[in-house]
């Protein structure tokens, strides 16, 4: 393992790979820092550019964007009190009050160091664990894989904002979208209407660009919220952290790291949730919980360590099981399939070099981002002054190129526009997009494993429940879907026991 890892690390350190990793990490930081944009958007924009590149270089670029995007999201949260993405919502609670008190330099240093520690240690854990988990996963059959996919989708539905019914509705739409094209078993054409562009299914890149980028730009412009408040940064010189800061906050850092790693590991849950949970836990553990919300350093540590620890956590199921740990990993999973790789438990065995390259690229990217952020900290306020009219125009142009180059056909551009409109309609109807995307990406596997499982069991569908591991995954998935209803009934029972039957 060590020899392969070092070989992969050396590949990442080759001049071109390292240069592109650095460039994409920096673009990721910028996108992560600007509210409304994200590293995920960056991945969907550069994905079409990687078609003609080697898988090594492509994943260096994509992972740089991933790590940079999550790391950079604290910048706006600290400087203007608006999170760059969902990963840094909790950072706003104490990061911005610190800035208002003239401690912006220290808040930014905590964000930079917390992000670095979270990513670095979590990716080391991921490197050590992924192989072992993949070995266990190799003992599983189609029943267990079906149930695992079902559980991943259910967990995302259970956690999606708003109504669980709408989340589930989105998941069923995603499963239907995955059925478009040639049937994986009998090769029958489904919902293609004789259009050869649909024989291979709905183009995933067009769907991503339409629902991520187009929808975001169009609704931001329609809402007119494209101006940033003035930055009250004060002096941003100096590192601002001492060894004592690390010692005082050691418990918060360790607990937040473990929370971030675990939440990242769970399918579908990522940095957007881990930062909130870790913040809540840090507040509970604190001797002075009243200080939280008014500039407590522990609050910034908790949020930033946890959201970046989710990176390593999310990569573990991606590499070892082919299940994305968070929303951005859904994009990385689609990148794997676009590059002709087969995600799943065999991925590490069949693509050992690439699997460790992914982990090594995250590690190197974390170091590059840390060094660049420390050196460029004083210029962070300028990032937030980027004019949206230039930024959005460029993004839309790249979307058109990306969509066209995914299949070199005009059909892709029209598909992207169609999904842009669908994205807006779903936003209006408050139907969440993440369950749809995950169900679409995993839908093909879900169907193939189900049909394979039924076929192997000679038509017996109960085999999914009679096999213990499969049954366990199914029960977790079902519990995740039913838990809001159960909690509602318990709450209702507590308030009025006689009315609940």
């Amino acid at each position: 393992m060590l020899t392969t890892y070092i070989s992969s690390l050396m590949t990442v350190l080759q001049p071109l790979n390292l240069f592109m990793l650095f460039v994409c990490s920096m673009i990721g930081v910028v996108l992560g820092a600007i509210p409304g944009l994200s590293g995920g958007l960056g991945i969907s924009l550069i994905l079409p550019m990687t078609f003609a590149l080697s898988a090594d270089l492509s994943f260096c670029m994509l992972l740089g964007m991933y790590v940079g995007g999550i790391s950079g999201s604290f910048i706006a949260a600290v400087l203007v009190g608006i999170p760059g993405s969902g990963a840094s919502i909790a950072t706003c609670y104490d990061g911005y009050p610190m800035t208002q008190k003239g401690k912006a330099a220290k808040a930014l240093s905590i964000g930079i160091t917390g992000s670095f520690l979270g990513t670095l240690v979590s990716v080391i854990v991921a490197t050590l664990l992924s192989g072992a988990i993949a070995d266990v996963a190799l003992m599983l059959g189609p029943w267990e894989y079906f149930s695992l996919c079902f559980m991943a989708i259910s967990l995302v539905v259970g956690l999606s904002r708003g109504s669980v019914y709408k989340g589930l509705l989105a998941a069923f739409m995603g499963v239907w979208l995955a059925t478009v094209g040639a049937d994986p078993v009998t090769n029958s054409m489904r919902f293609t209407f004789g259009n050869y562009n649909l024989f291979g299914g709905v183009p995933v890149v067009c769907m991503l660009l339409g629902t991520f980028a187009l929808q975001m730009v169009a609704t931001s412009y329609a809402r007119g919220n494209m101006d940033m408040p003035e930055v009250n940064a004060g002096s941003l010189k100096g590192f601002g952290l001492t060894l004592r800061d690390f010692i005082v906050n050691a418990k918060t850092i360790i607990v937040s790291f473990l929370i971030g790693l675990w939440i990242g590991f769970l399918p579908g849950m990522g940095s957007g949730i881990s930062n909130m949970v870790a913040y809540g836990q840090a507040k509970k553990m604190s001797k002075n919980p009243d200080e939280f919300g008014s500039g407590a350093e522990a609050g910034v540590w908790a949020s930033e360590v946890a959201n970046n620890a989710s990176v390593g956590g999310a990569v573990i199921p991606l590499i070892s099981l082919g299940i994305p740990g968070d929303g951005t990993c859904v994009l990385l999973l689609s990148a794997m399939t676009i590059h002709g790789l087969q995600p799943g438990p065999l991925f590490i065995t069949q693509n050992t070099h690439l699997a460790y390259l992914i982990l090594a690229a995250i590690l190197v990217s974390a170091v590059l981002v840390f060094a660049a952020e420390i050196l460029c900290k004083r210029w962070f306020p300028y990032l937030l002054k980027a004019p949206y009219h230039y930024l959005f125009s460029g993004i839309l142009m790249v979307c058109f190129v990306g969509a066209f180059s995914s299949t070199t056909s005009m059909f892709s551009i029209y598909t992207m526009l169609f999904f842009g409109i669908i994205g807006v309609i779903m936003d209006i109807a408050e139907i969440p997009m993440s369950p749809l995307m995950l169900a679409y990406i995993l839908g093909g596997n879900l169907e193939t494993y189900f049909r394979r499982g039924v076929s192997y069991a000679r038509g017996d569908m109960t085999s999914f429940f009679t096999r213990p591991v499969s049954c366990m995954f199914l029960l977790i998935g079902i519990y995740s879907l039913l838990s809001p209803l159960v909690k509602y009934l318990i709450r209702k029972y507590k308030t009025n026991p006689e009315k609940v039957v």
Partner: protein
Amino acid sequence: MKTFNKTYISGVICLMFAGWIIWQTGTIGERLVSNEPGPRLFPYISAIGIIVCSVLSMIFDGRKETAKRQYLTKDGWKRLGIMFAELIVFAIGIHLIGFLLTAIIMMMVLIMTLKEDKKIRLLFAISLSVGLSAIVYFSFTKVFVIPLPTGMLW
């Protein structure tokens, strides 16, 4: 501005969509392999799932939905319409006159649309439109060797 119950409207649209899926699924050719559920199973499951979730959403979420803040103002809807109209025109433009020329015009028009009341330096906007379009075009066609549309009118 009159507000509609979004959950009821989206529920009805989803029910119609699920009905269409069921109708279309019936036309899929069945090539049965032994002990195998066949290609119609998952589309049917999706359609039934969409129906059940739409009905449950209308019952439980639709009732709760009050006159909350509207999604967009009247002006916002107008902007959204303009944005998508421009994007559709650009798509047709790429088809007719090719990527490079359309991209330059598209960048310029989008900058003018998105800037709203802000003052911009016209020369900078033109340079950016031409420069960025050219960089993207040559990166894709020469570096990544991915052909971009040249237009059917030329």
